[in-house]
């Protein structure tokens, strides 16, 4: 296992080291996300304050929003720009020259991208919303702690599955880029889908009632909605366990679909420019 995993670990490490160097971009993103987070908190406060029988309390919604801002880049809304470049230039041929399972190879790249980038932004965001705001006496509008130790533990598990799910989505996107020779179409379609159906735009429980069953079973829910609701205690006990199960199911399903697609795409590969 150790020897088998060595190349994939090495690729993960190299990508991770590279991506954490983009600190200026992270800082800019952090500033934007603070701003958007503040606006969203105010909007939802206006809606939810004094509302009776709301599917989500203001407290839960505020946590959901801040976590959403912190982990925004965990969403798989774009294909790997580096791989897209390799597809355009034909360098992608070299990826097939490696004695590796190309799916696992690209999945390792995706995991690096879905951990390094969010980590850089999540740390200042959580500190700001969870520590600075309460210190400034604005605790009501800041990020509260998790709903107890079990919730914290389950949240951690759910976040790990979330990274696995997001990486499976990303690898699927990367494979589609190879088939389509351009990342533009994939990114244009995936962006809005990921933002809306992960709950990043509006927390999923606040969407229309008749949409709820649909929202529960679709794959994007496992990206942000599931861990965030576990964090604030909106999902507890059996409900939380079931949500984790759905999350894990989608990881397996997307990996299978991704591998199937990759097999098909690679066998029909044509290389650009001779």
């Amino acid at each position, binding site marked *: 296992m150790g020897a088998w995993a060595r190349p994939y670990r090495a690729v993960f490490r190299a990508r991770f080291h*590279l991506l954490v160097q983009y600190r200026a971009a992270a800082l800019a993103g952090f500033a934007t996300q603070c701003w958007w987070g503040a606006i969203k908190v105010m909007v939802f406060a206006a809606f939810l304050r004094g509302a009776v029988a709301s599917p989500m309390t203001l407290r839960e919604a505020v946590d959901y929003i801040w976590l959403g801002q912190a982990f925004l880049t965990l969403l798989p809304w774009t294909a790997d720009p580096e791989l897209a470049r390799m597809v355009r230039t034909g360098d992608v*041929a*070299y990826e097939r020259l490696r004695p590796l*399972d190309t799916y696992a190879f690209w999945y390792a790249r995706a995991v690096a991208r879905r951990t390094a980038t969010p980590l850089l932004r999540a740390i200042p965001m959580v500190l700001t919303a969870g520590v600075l705001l309460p210190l400034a006496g604005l605790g009501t509008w800041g990020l509260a702690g998790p709903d107890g130790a079990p919730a914290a533990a389950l949240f951690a598990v759910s976040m790990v599955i979330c990274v696995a799910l997001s990486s499976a989505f990303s690898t699927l996107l990367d494979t589609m880029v190879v088939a389509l020779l351009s990342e533009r179409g994939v990114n244009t379609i995936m962006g809005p889908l990921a933002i809306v159906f992960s709950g990043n735009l509006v927390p999923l429980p606040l969407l229309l009632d008749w949409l709820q069953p649909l929202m529960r079973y679709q794959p994007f829910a496992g990206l942000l909605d599931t861990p965030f609701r576990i964090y604030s205690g909106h999902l507890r006990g059996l409900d939380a366990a079931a949500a984790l199960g759905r999350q894990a199911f989608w990881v397996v399903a997307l990996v299978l679909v991704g591998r199937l697609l990759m097999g098909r795409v690679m066998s029909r590969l044509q290389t650009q420019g001779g």
Partner: protein
Amino acid sequence: MILVDSLTKSFRVAERAGGALGTITSLVRGRYRTVDALKGVSFALGEGELLGLIGPNGAGKSTTIKILCGILEPTSGTCEVGGLVPWRERVRHVARIGAVFGQRTQLWWDLPVRESFELLRDIYRVPPDRYRARSDELIALLDLDRLLSTPVRQLSLGQRMRCEIAASMLHDPRVLFLDEPTIGLDAVAKLAVRDFVKTLHRERGVTVILTTHDMHDVEALAERVIVIGKGVILADGSLVSLRRGALAERRLWVHLVRDVTAVDIPGAVVRSRQGRSVELAFDPRTTSAHRLIAHIASLFEVEDVHLEEPPIEEVIARFYAQHAVEV
């Protein structure tokens, strides 16, 4: 070592009529044209051979190499490299080969060369001590010492190509595919690449398949040449036999002491004349050089003569023309 049997490969190429109307109709109904890149290519190559694969652009050289590397699947036909079918047993196959595509890069753009090498070490699962010995040797052979800590994007093309070639040999493959490794390089870098390939081949017995447009690469390296055109093999043999078949003539340069009005020598054709320098062409199979020179010397006062073969580029161009290959 390498067996290629009637490989064919067809690509589907999207076609569309020009203009706005063409763009719109292509959205509704795509029209495709089939391009046959390879139309039955067969050859066999023994262990330790060095083969030059030449042919005009679009002849099918790169397609052949990519099939042999396991990157592309052929439409029909089979091939085996070291007992493995490249596209069917890709992972095992690619672990045993090295490849350099001159127009692409396998090094990580943002990483220093050394880190790229170490990443390849892990990707090919090379044991640390073997890697150390191997990389030291390659670094010395290709003179990479001062480049190792430079990020790849800051290297010149010649420096990068030396690193690319080293990168392809870190896992000590027995077969090396070089697809236009000297493209765009200056004279010094070309020589460095040729020397290195020669060393690999002579001293380590690595089997090499090389494609190139630079006939000097072929002259310097290849014992055997395969010419591909329009997806079929046009010739397979030594450079000498290729020359004999395509353009056997020799050229004799004569520098005269005095101006002459006309030069007319049986058995030779005047190719060019500039003042007192005359270039003659003759067929060595029918006219002997020695007799030709003696005859000229008896007619004129000669300052200097020299004999040469037509440049290899010209031989190949003639060969393409004879086989009606579009260049």
